[in-house]
């Protein structure tokens, strides 16, 4: 029975890693700019499909780097041309425009890649399985856990231990004062948005070998990511990581222990979080 629970703990960690990659960018742009960017789901989907096309030409490792870079570029372009303007207009235009982008991206993906779901085969080095405490676990899923943990650590260090991170935190907590002391908050926004898009792209390409890439994934990934953001608290990395662990834990152990209720458990958790701590478990001061 230990093997069974080891498997499920690993499943939960792997699910949390994917959720973190999607939710981190969403959470930070939420906290920093007050921008509800629903197009984040579309960026995640593009990461998966671009990754599959690149991998078909050059192999998995190149795709793992190229897809997030390509999606960052798309994100930066979107921010400069459209979303940067919309971000100042308040929540309703933000939601309408960014959700409109989801529909456009979904149809574009259908035109370019078709309706049949596609898969990405990971590098041969990541194929196969290992034995851990009596459980047999796919190597690729361990790799996903490592990527999630590494990105979380790197982002946390970047935000809390570097000058750029200090400027970023200042822009979140008090944008007016940050501008007064010479931090170019506009540029900071663009940087954060681009980075968030890249993370979503990385999430997409990393998820593709596990969940087949399909045009429906833009919407299906968005909802859990929003729940992670709300539960964890907007605008900080630790919150996104904690939220991802909680949501993944509820989804995996809910499916194991209370299968009949598994579909509603995360919504119940969301409701509890909104009543008990509407600002999220961990929250950046400025976003309060």
């Amino acid at each position: 029975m230990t093997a069974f629970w080891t498997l499920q703990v690993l499943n939960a960690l792997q699910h949390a890693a994917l959720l973190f990659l999607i939710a981190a960018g969403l959470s930070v742009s939420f906290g920093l700019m007050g921008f509800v960017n629903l197009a984040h789901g579309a960026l995640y989907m593009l990461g998966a499909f671009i990754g599959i096309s690149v991998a078909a030409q050059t192999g998995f490792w190149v795709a793992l780097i190229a897809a997030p870079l390509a999606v960052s570029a798309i994100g930066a372009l979107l921010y400069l041309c459209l979303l940067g303007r919309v971000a100042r207009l308040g929540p309703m235009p933000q939601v309408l425009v960014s959700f409109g982008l989801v529909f456009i991206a979904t149809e574009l993906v259908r035109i370019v890649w078709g309706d049949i779901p596609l898969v990405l085969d990971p590098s041969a080095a990541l194929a196969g399985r290992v034995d851990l405490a009596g459980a047999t676990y796919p190597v690729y899923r361990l790799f996903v856990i490592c990527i999630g943990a590494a990105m979380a650590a790197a982002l946390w260090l970047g935000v809390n231990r570097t000058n750029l991170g200090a400027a970023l935190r200042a822009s979140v907590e008090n944008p007016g004062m940050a501008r007064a002391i010479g931090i170019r908050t506009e540029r900071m926004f663009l940087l954060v948005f681009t980075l968030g898009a890249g993370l979503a792209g990385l999430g997409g390409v990393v998820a593709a070998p596990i969940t087949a890439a399909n045009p429906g994934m833009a919407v299906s990934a968005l909802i859990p990511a929003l729940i992670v953001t709300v539960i964890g608290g907007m605008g900080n990395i630790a919150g996104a990581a904690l939220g991802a662990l909680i949501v993944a834990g509820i989804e995996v152990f809910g499916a194991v222990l209370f299968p009949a209720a598994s579909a509603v458990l995360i919504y119940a958790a969301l409701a509890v979080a909104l009543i008990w701590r509407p600002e999220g478990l961990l929250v950046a001061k400025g976003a309060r």
Partner: protein
Amino acid sequence: MKPFVFSCLLAFALPAHADTTVGLMLPASGNYAALGQDIEDGFRMALQEAGRSNIRVIEADTEADPQTGLTLARKLIMQDRADVLVGVVSSAVLGAVRDVVHQAEIPLIVANAGNSDATGKDCSAFITRVSFSNDQLNRPMGEWMAAQGISSVYTLAPDYAAGQQMIAAFSDAFTAGGGEIVGGEFTPFGKTEDFGPYLAKAQASGAQALYVFYGGADAVSFVKQYDSFGLRDTLPLYSVGFLTAPLYLREQGTSAAGVIGALHYLPSLDTPENEAFVDAYQKAHPDTLPSEYVVAGYDAGRLLVGALDSGAEGRAALAAALPQVAYTGPRGPLKIDPVTNNIVQNVYVFETVEGPDGMTHQVLDTVEAVRDPPNGCAME
């Protein structure tokens, strides 16, 4: 030469049949768009093969939305004065249009939706199905697995009408054959992308085999994940054949090797009728094998042409003539059961194997002329 020219002129001057208007109700957008396209391709292939130019086809994009389907069915019936409706992919849309079709007394040829009720307790003299029913594919599979000496099974399927109907039909047949269902889960439909937690439960259940129904993107990711956990040796995978259908097999690749399923059509069937059909399809779609959806569309067309050839004209005559049509087509002998208006057809139990040109299906067993019991169907 002269008599030939003359006969050609005559053929133009005196059309042999009056025009027939077909309302084609298929999703052209959304999750089922690929299926809709396949069905339409097959349907038009049958009309073209029959050389009929006097059939007017009006397309209606029903999506998978019952409300849209109902609105468009009314439009086709009342405004376009269609003689016959063809299509319907989603079981939910079929449920929604059933009463309108029945009351308007217009024949409907169902080319996909497997909802068992439509040829069971909600059957109608005007609804004829040429695809399959959920019961029809799962019952033989349950009997077959029990006969193979498999004693215990764990089941997984998405939590919606089709998933529940399929697993129920399988479980009834499997337990009647002496097998035991040791456990099972219905996974949240459209929300489950990671089957890891469920696969671990299936593994821990100690069952001898795993039986599932998944389609669409789920079919591809489920097979990939099953393979990545290395369950092939300890927990062999059986399914309703949609899991490794031709549409998904190319993406699944060798992960699908060894999966056993049951379907009403396989592109690899070794019959002259199927060979001719595959050749004709590949002329228009190089390097693609026809899916069971193309065949369902094709047979819907064949049924319509057959009814028209028998001299039927207009809604009532067509509705009466459609169930009379019988022939041997790509999937084998095909006829309509007069008791339910559901198709009677062979079900092929197959193993997904690696062939010389990629993955293919190898028939293990043929369950001939599978006919659904009436299930409460009483046609007036």
